[in-house]
């Protein structure tokens, strides 16, 4: 059953972009033990990251998105365990099973192949070291490169992120503003030319104007350097801004996965629709917002059947007993719900009411 699903997803992927996916995740399960019980943080997640795309993982607190991001580069806390699943990495014709890598190989995988920028990143700097020292330390820790070449790379990347390279490279972290530090982190993540970049809440701690420059920068960097990107956020508007494809996560699973325009204008899962209806826009007339009733589920004691059913306006008896699996609904658009048609009709009504039927969308 899962192989069917995987092959369906792969099929559509190969239709869209013939290049092999740099990262494939199949049926990933991550759990960790708490005193109260077993927390099922990631449950059966399957997706491909296509070459050169930016994939957004959207979800609220406690949906497992950060755990998933950490699992991809195996940086989970000791108490967490990857119960099951496969993570495959491909580059230049070579295929690597990430979960089977030994710790030493894993360390060179991280940063060289796949770099991560964390959520609390602004505090990730060592206050007594200059930026250059931290960059060189990072390079050394993950594979190393001659010092001269490293310095050249560093200066080049600092220029890419629109900082004054000479000034910043010898500065201490406290001499830089929040936005500048975030840009340094982006530059650091690209030092060893990774194929994949994972960003966890990249702009959460930033002001509106600073966030704007970082978002524009990320778009430009991706176009210039051609890496694939996974960014994790609770902020739908950032996904609308940056993503090529969006995956909505709820209670540890991906409940909907598709191109950004499909997700926003033609959602098929009640949670996705609920999120869209709960987020206001700044431009345009006043819109009434609708909240999602209830609260996020306890990951130790999940509801039976579809984990969203207690909060879902379309739930039926079937939803209480059976958990829907992520299946293809339309071309390149997969959803885990039995009532996608009803959701879709509701979404159409909502966007029609808006007036601006999205014309010219791809």
């Amino acid at each position, binding site marked *: 059953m899962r192989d069917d699903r995987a092959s369906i997803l792969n099929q559509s992927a190969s239709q869209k972009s013939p290049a092999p996916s740099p990262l494939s995740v199949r049926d990933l399960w991550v759990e960790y033990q708490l005193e109260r019980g077993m927390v099922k943080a990631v449950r059966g997640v399957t997706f491909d990251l296509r070459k050169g795309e930016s994939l957004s993982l959207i979800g*609220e*607190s406690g949906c497992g998105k950060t755990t998933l991001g950490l699992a991809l580069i195996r940086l989970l806390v000791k108490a967490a365990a990857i119960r099951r699943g496969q993570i495959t990495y491909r580059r230049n014709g070579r295929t690597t099973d990430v979960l089977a890598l030994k710790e030493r190989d894993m360390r060179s995988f991280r940063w060289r192949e796949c770099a991560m920028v964390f959520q609390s990143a602004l505090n990730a700097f060592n206050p007594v070291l200059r930026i250059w020292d931290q960059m060189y330390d990072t390079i050394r820790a993950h594979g190393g490169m001659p010092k001269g070449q490293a310095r050249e790379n560093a200066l080049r990347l600092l220029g890419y992120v629109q900082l004054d390279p000479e000034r910043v490279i010898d500065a201490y972290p406290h001499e830089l*503003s929040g*936005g500048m530090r975030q840009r340094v982190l982006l530059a650091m993540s690209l030092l060893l030319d990774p194929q994949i970049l994972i960003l966890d809440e990249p702009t959460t701690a930033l*002001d*509106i*104007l*600073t*966030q*704007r*420059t970082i*978002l*524009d920068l990320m778009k430009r960097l991706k176009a210039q350097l051609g890496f694939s990107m996974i960014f994790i956020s*609770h*902020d*739908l*508007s*950032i996904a*609308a*801004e940056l993503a090529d494809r969006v995956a909505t996560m709820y209670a540890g699973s991906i409940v909907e996965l598709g191109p*950004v*325009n499909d997700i*926003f*204008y033609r959602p098929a899962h009640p949670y996705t629709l*609920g*999120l*869209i209806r*709960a*987020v*206001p*826009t*700044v*431009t345009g007339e*006043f*819109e009434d*917002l*609708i*909240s*999602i*009733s209830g*609260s*996020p589920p306890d990951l130790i004691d999940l509801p039976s059947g579809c984990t969203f059913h207690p909060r879902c306006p379309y739930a039926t008896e079937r939803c209480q007993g059976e958990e829907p699996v992520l299946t293809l609904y339309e071309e390149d658009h997969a959803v885990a719900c039995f009532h996608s048609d009803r959701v879709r009709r509701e979404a159409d009504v909502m966007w029609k009411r808006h007036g*601006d039927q*999205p014309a*010219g*969308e791809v």
Partner: protein
Amino acid sequence: MAEYLIETCNLTRTFGSRREQVTAVDNLSLGVHEGEVVCLVGESGCGKTTTGKIIAGLLQPTAGQVLYQGRDVWARDKAGFKGYRLGVQLIHQDPYASLNPSHTICQTLSAPLLHHGFATSHRQARERAAELLEIADLTPVEDFLTKYPHQLSGGQRQRVSVARALTVSPSFIVADEAVSMVDVSIRVGLLNMLSRLKESLGVTFLFITHDLAVAKFFAWEGRIAVMYVGSLVEVASTPQLVSDPLHPYSKALLAAVPEADPVLTRRKERIRLRSQDIPSLLNLPSGCRFHPRCPCFEEGLCDTERPGLTPADDNRYVACHIAARGVGARP
């Protein structure tokens, strides 16, 4: 013009020693009418939280006045000051820090009721606490009265904070980023509950936020005041500000916000600022504080003379030389 319920006159607040002084709030004058909703909007460090705390009486201004019902707050006698303290309540941003972890919800709500004589016995206090939880939409109340804060989610805790603020029947509530740390799907419910307080209890609101979309939603029938580095740069009704901002900073903010609508957000015209540097509060730019970044900058004018808040229409103010000029020429 109707009377203001709360008004600040040339409010100033500085922090730090004489040598190194930071002016968090600089000569701020703002009035809120009874029953109105005013959103105070700005980025971090602009002084909006400090302003909120001063208005709620939790901080004393360094200069200037806060008037409640027309009378200076800090010149009142003990009874008068108490009336003001209880009449203006503040709701904090962080749901994980705003409730005492050692008290049950019932204890948290009963304490002010008993202390101020709103209830004369524990039984009465408990009844009233249950009523307040119902108003804050935290039902079924029996489930929550005996719980401790750590057993509640962020959104539920914020509702308890609101219920606690309501124990003393305030006429004015300052909500300091009250929904910023709450999940998106819960946020709307909270905002709707607060709006209902306005309708049913006639509470006046000062809503502080950095999120323009939330400000637009909550204060659509009210006004938005935009702050930058301690001063107001624009005050206008929400529909006006969102559709036709006058101040370059307001324009930049509105243009910079990403929208939850892919086509809309990718088509949005971005405004390029002259500089990325955020001004340091210890070394403020001369003249207009925004001039180093302002795309409309005029040398000789904007860097020498500080613009004041000038009227730019009925009930609208802007602090910008260029915008003020344009206003004169408007029909």
